[in-house]
């Protein structure tokens, strides 16, 4: 397989590729490489943080120590977020991890309860390449989601439509594929959904509306799973998911012909692995217009740098600062629609931060930082938060790894390892003039270019 195509594949299903790995793979065929990719993601390694503080606790204990529990839990959620960032930087099941990241911006959810966060995040990971129908049903029964979209407050006596609406609008069908009545009827089907205090799903019959519902033209006394089954029968659902996968992994400009092909694969059984295999084996995935044209998400940007020069931000707090400045904090999405991607990642502020970060992270430059107030839920304590900070971000960078890995590459070759997009003519000339820089400085410079924002 062509090196540029392997690089492209690994940029999209991972966060780049080392020269060693690239030369190992370049001797293999596309089919073999992709088989290897899937088989290395067959397993699932759950992400865990230490939650022994909950050992032996009963519901009563937690109720009594509620404040204390919430405090520890919030801390643990942050720990989980940084553990996730670590995982992305050192993944075993690369495709599965990238898919998990994708689904986290599809089935968008947020919780401050560490048990719920743990359960939800690992559910995404486990189902990331599985059956979309089962996946959606699991999402609907997760404690985190029951809280996030108010489904646990959805009762026969007074239905709450929040989950039912987003299930269709954002998770399965997309806008304008259903009526307000469909939302009301399906909300009734989800009444009675709740969870126990450790998060296990709990169906409370007495709050469930047993009466007949009419949903997307069908009538019956449906429950939540029935609603999801009816949605899945719609080809539009396969199309909606295909488009979302296409715009994330292939190109934000949708090609209808390619989507039609994807739908005909996906609609058969909603098997996500089959769909992904089809996409990655397709010819069009490797077309020129799809290579080096996607604007990296902040996480892709940060983890991508780590693929080239491994670095570790020492203070966990500063990991959050960095993510926040770039506009994507893991486990903290802006709202249930998730992060807007593509050009939405880039504005005057984020572009400046991105171009500066390589020297900040890898050359210990100083960066200034201020907080904004957009957290939907931080109503009670936002007065206490500090209004601005300035800081040096403490980082250890493994330059030895870099030197070792790229010892056979000249600076000129380095360009094509680091950048897959077209290069602006003037910038290419500037790079040519700077080729005599040390490899260390040269690579920092490469990562400080607008071109590096693309993959």
């Amino acid at each position, binding site marked *: 397989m062509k090196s540029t195509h392997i690089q492209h594949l690994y940029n999209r299903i991972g966060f780049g590729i080392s020269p060693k790995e690239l030369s190992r793979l370049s001797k293999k065929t596309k089919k073999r490489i992709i088989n290897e990719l899937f088989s290395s993601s067959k397993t699932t390694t759950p992400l865990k943080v230490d939650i022994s503080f909950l050992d032996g606790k009963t519901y009563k204990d937690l109720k009594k120590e509620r404040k204390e529990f919430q405090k520890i839990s919030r801390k643990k959620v942050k720990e989980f977020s940084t553990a996730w960032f670590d995982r992305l930087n050192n993944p075993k099941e690369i495709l599965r991890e990238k898919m998990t990241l994708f689904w986290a911006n599809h089935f968008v959810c947020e919780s401050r309860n560490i048990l719920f966060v743990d359960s939800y995040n690992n559910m995404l990971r486990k189902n990331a390449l599985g059956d979309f129908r089962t996946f959606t049903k699991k999402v609907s029964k997760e404690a985190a989601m029951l809280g996030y979209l*108010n489904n646990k407050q959805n009762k026969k006596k007074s239905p*709450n*439509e929040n989950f039912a*609406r*987003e299930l269709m609008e954002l998770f399965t069908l997309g806008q*304008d594929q259903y009526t*307000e009545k469909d939302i*009301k009827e399906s909300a009734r089907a989800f009444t009675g959904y709740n969870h126990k205090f450790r998060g296990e799903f709990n169906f409370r019959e007495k709050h469930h509306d047993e009466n007949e519902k009419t949903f997307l033209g069908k009538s019956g006394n449906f429950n939540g799973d029935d609603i999801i089954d009816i949605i899945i029968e719609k080809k539009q659902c396969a199309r909606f998911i295909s488009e979302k996968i296409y715009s994330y992994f292939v190109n934000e400009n949708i090609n209808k012909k390619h989507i039609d092909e994807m739908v005909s694969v996906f609609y058969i059984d909603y098997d996500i692995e089959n769909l992904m295999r089809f996409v990655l084996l397709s010819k069009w995935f490797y077309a020129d217009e799809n290579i080096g*044209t*996607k*604007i990296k998400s902040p996480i892709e940007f940060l983890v991508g740098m780590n693929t080239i020069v491994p670095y570790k931000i020492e203070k966990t707090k500063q990991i959050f600062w960095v993510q926040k*400045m770039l*506009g994507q904090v893991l486990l903290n999405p802006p709202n*249930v*629609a998730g992060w807007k991607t*593509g*050009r939405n990642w*880039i*504005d*005057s*502020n*984020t*572009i*400046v*931060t991105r*171009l*500066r970060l390589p*020297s900040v992270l890898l*050359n*210990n430059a100083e*960066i*200034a930082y*201020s907080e*904004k*107030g*957009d*957290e*939907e839920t931080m*109503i*009670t304590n936002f*007065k206490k938060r500090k*209004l601005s900070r*300035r800081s040096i971000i403490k980082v250890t960078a493994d330059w030895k790894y870099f030197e070792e890995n790229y010892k056979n590459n000249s600076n000129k070759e380095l360009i094509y390892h680091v950048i897959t*997009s*077209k290069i*602006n*003519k*003037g*910038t290419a*000339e*500037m790079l040519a003039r*700077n080729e005599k820089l040390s490899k260390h*400085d040269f690579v*920092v*410079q490469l990562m*400080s*270019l*607008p*071109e590096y924002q*693309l993959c």
Partner: protein
Amino acid sequence: MKRRDFLKQTTFASGMFFVPQFLKAFEQMPNKTFSNKKVVIIQLKGGNDGLNTVVPFNNDIYYQQRNNIALKQNDLFKISDEVGLHKSLKPLQNLYNKGFVSIINNVGYPNPNLSHFRATDIWQTASDSNEFLQNGWVGRYLDHTKGNPFSAIEVDESLSLMMKGKTQNGLAITDPKMFYNSMKAPFFNNVVTNYNDAHLSEHNLGYLYNTMIDAKSSAKYIFEKSKTKTSPAEYPKNIFAKQLKTISQFINSGLETQVFYAGLSGFDTHANQTNSQAKLLKTYAESMEVFVEDLQKNNTFEDVLILTFSEFGRRVKQNESKGTDHGTANNVFVMGKNLKKQGLYNDLPNLGDLDKNGNLKYEIDFREIYATILDKWLQVDDVAILNKSFSKLNFV
């Protein structure tokens, strides 16, 4: 030091000879201002419950529909025999009495959308509810007036759709000095001045370069202009107030920015809304009071119009969780010195006449407010910017 070397070595490649044509044009172009009026737009994000903000305290339906969360007369301050404002808005009473506030009721649009994102997009793009626009109405204002990025500033770290036009985006900025300093590195100069592939401008790469160029020129202007003026006014210590303080600094230093955008989040009160809404409205009102005073002291208030909206109101009937679900029409607050219509602009909603989902019916299209501001306040062609003609109101 290594980093210093790195910077030094890269300065020699400075692109003195190669300033792209459009960049030159940008730097020499005087800001073409159609009027010296300014608009400050504030979004109460999440959907503020307008019915518990401007309250019909003699309305039986109101109390029937909201038995746990309805506000009683002592939770309000009266502005008429029928209407009271949430007592958290007390800091605005003074401004209200001076005639600096106009409350426009029942603002919405046909076939309202009840999703936050979609409703926010509709308000920000000024689209119909079944129309998907990729640019915002302020962005199109920039296109139309050939404005600079700094002609419209969002005091935040990221830029909303509202501020993005077809050819010109506004600017997101929280701290001008920080922003300016972060771009002084020589390497940035090189990257920016070396951009010469015009044919890339249609693509993502061109977008990246152009955003960088805009950022750099604007940062310089904003920093140099606004550094002369720091406000001595005591703003409350919260992030919303800090945004307003930044805006007052920009306005009072004579920055040629015409539109500002800021927001306060947390209004999505599906459960236990009473306390959280009270806190949020208090934050809003206390900060606004200081802001308006600050502008008055600097004699800039008469050139400023402040618009406060929320992407939707909330359902008339409360839910089982002592909260309210997403609704439709809502009130909009307009503040300014010489308002043509002060106090209540129109009647409160008719709670006896709801749509089939139990939501309020709108009376005034929100785009009539935009059209009025564009036409009468900013004095530009509102039809060109809103893509349609809307009737005008008479608050300014």
